[in-house]
């Protein structure tokens, strides 16, 4: 992901400018470009910046009728409560754990499939396989939950049926918290692998073919070409993808979890992530204060992690840093 938004000092001012332009002069000179940016500026102001002061809800005993700033201020009490009963740490643990597995297994599988796709000779096979793998990415999470239901629901599920035909006893997955980490990880891999494979495959096709040909002429076999040419060439893309993903390590995929698990509280211990908790706090329990506290905690931790990750990367390999 190319996210070079850092200010590049020497490039801002055109070299031909001798004097520093005044602010208003710049505004008037670039007023059309500013106007072109205006809808986007307004959009992010209305939907991203204006909600920010509302994070104050996390420090209040919120009363909907009195509004945000009319509600009584109670300091850190919401956070103390959520830490005290272990809720916040459970949510953080689940969210981070799932993301780590998604990122590591996902990227491994994507790189593997991209390399294998590259070994495929038949153009037809390559194209068709790529199209088929990419399809699940286009499907809503609502449909994904139906697909899973179709496979493993106790009464009519496809897998349940096969197990029974084979003489086994099908577990009741929808009341088994221990099974869901595996199910959710599998579903996530199913849905996202094609997308990542396409990106890595594109990176492979960008590699200079003469290197691979030279290696082949020198007698390198398939394993050696992958080990010594393809993998090192993919490293920058992998690092960027991992770093980008690490920045979102405390952000959960709400759609996936909520559609698969829903309000099935039997499974919450192993499946509840920050997003699903906040959503239920808001929509089912109308607990604005706690929902807001969990959300704010997530934002602050997430922000700190991005900053730290970016700082570390900047020190080791400046060109890989996000900003």
């Amino acid at each position: 992901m190319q996210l070079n938004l850092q200010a590049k000092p020497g490039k801002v001012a055109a070299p031909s400018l001798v004097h520093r332009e005044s602010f208003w002069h710049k505004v008037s000179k670039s007023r059309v470009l500013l106007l072109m940016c205006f809808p986007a500026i307004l959009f992010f102001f209305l939907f991203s910046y204006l909600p920010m002061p509302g994070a104050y809800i996390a420090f209040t005993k919120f009363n909907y009728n009195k509004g945000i700033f009319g509600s009584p201020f109670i300091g850190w009490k919401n956070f103390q409560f959520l830490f005290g009963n272990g809720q916040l740490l459970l949510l953080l643990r689940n969210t981070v754990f799932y993301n780590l597995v998604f990122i590591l297994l996902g990227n491994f599988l994507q790189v593997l499939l991209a390399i294998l796709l590259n070994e495929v000779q038949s153009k037809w096979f390559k194209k068709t396989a790529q199209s088929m793998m990419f399809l699940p990415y286009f499907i809503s999470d609502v449909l994904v939950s139906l697909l899973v239901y179709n496979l493993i629901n106790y009464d009519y599920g496809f897998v349940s049926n096969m197990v029974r035909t084979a003489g086994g006893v099908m577990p009741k997955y929808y009341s088994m918290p221990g099974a869901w980490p595996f199910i959710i990880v599998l579903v996530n891999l199913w849905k996202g692998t094609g997308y990542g494979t396409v990106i890595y495959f594109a990176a492979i096709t960008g590699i200079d073919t003469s290197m691979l040909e030279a290696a082949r002429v020198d007698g390198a076999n398939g394993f050696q070409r992958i080990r010594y040419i393809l993998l090192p060439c993919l490293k920058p893309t992998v690092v960027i993808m991992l770093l980008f993903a690490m920045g979102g390590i405390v952000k959960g995929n709400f759609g996936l979890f909520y559609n698969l698990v829903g309000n099935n509280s039997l499974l919450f211990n192993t499946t509840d992530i920050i997003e699903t908790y906040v959503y239920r706090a808001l929509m089912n329990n109308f607990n604005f204060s706690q929902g807001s506290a969990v959300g704010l905690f997530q934002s602050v931790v997430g922000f700190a992690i991005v900053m730290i990750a970016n700082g570390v990367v900047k020190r080791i390999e400046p060109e890989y840093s996000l900003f």
Partner: protein
Amino acid sequence: MEPKMNFHPTKVKIDGADRLIRGFTYVFVGIFAVMCIIPFWMIIASSFSTEAAIRRTGFTLWPTSFSTYSYDLIFRSPAQLIGAYVVTVVMTIIGTSVGLFIISMTGYALQRKDFPFRNGISFYIYFTSLFSAGLVPFYYLMVKVYGLKDSYWAVLLPLLMSPWLIILMKNYVKAIPHEITESGKIDGAGDFRIFWSLIVPSMTPALATIGLFLALGYWNEWYYSSLFLGSQVTYRPLQYWLYNLINKVAALKNSLAATQLVLDDLPSETLKMATATLATGPIILLYPFVQKYFVAGLTVGAVKG
């Protein structure tokens, strides 16, 4: 991106390791690819099955007894289905065109080297993906301050753009030669004129890709609907309609109240599958034609280097 990569001269002999990799490749890639589409097939197959067969043998890969009963039922009182389709199609068209216009305009302005505010505005947009107030304050603002509860605007507006799409667009426009803007300036065209008549025509692949991302977002939308569209809203967007049908048997009963069926006879399993097929059908049908734009788009815009 395609062919030159896999030029394997036949003269070079293929050794054991190569053969092993190749064999493994076809099996592994083949199995994974098939696994990716089988569930779709199963949904379609079971939507054409009789409820009795599903109760007897469960979902299968082939309808054991073919029936179009669930489709008949849906089309017997099609108001819900038609309403959902109209809402979704209208939102997708309006949202995608307005979003695309704003995103491309912003992306163009932000990559202009002579635009002194480009770094500031870029950061202003990018920052929203680093830090947010969270769902609760956003919800409060939308409902209490903007008054958008039960309004389609609450679904249409938040999906118009995202920092990621703007950055993607900016990277695309960067690839367009700077000389185009320069030549426009020399001819005396204003910035918007340059954008509209010179830049837009030369970036159709980018517009296709980002437009498809937007359209997909609107078509698959159920999240903002579930937050803001309450029971007063008669016609829900397709996926949210499907969501309710799957999760709430009550919704199923309501949608078929007009047909005056006895509820025990209700083929709830096949109905879910038929509804899912109808809600996803257009995507599956369009997919073969549009997926190449996605692939091309990701190749250009998302990979560094």
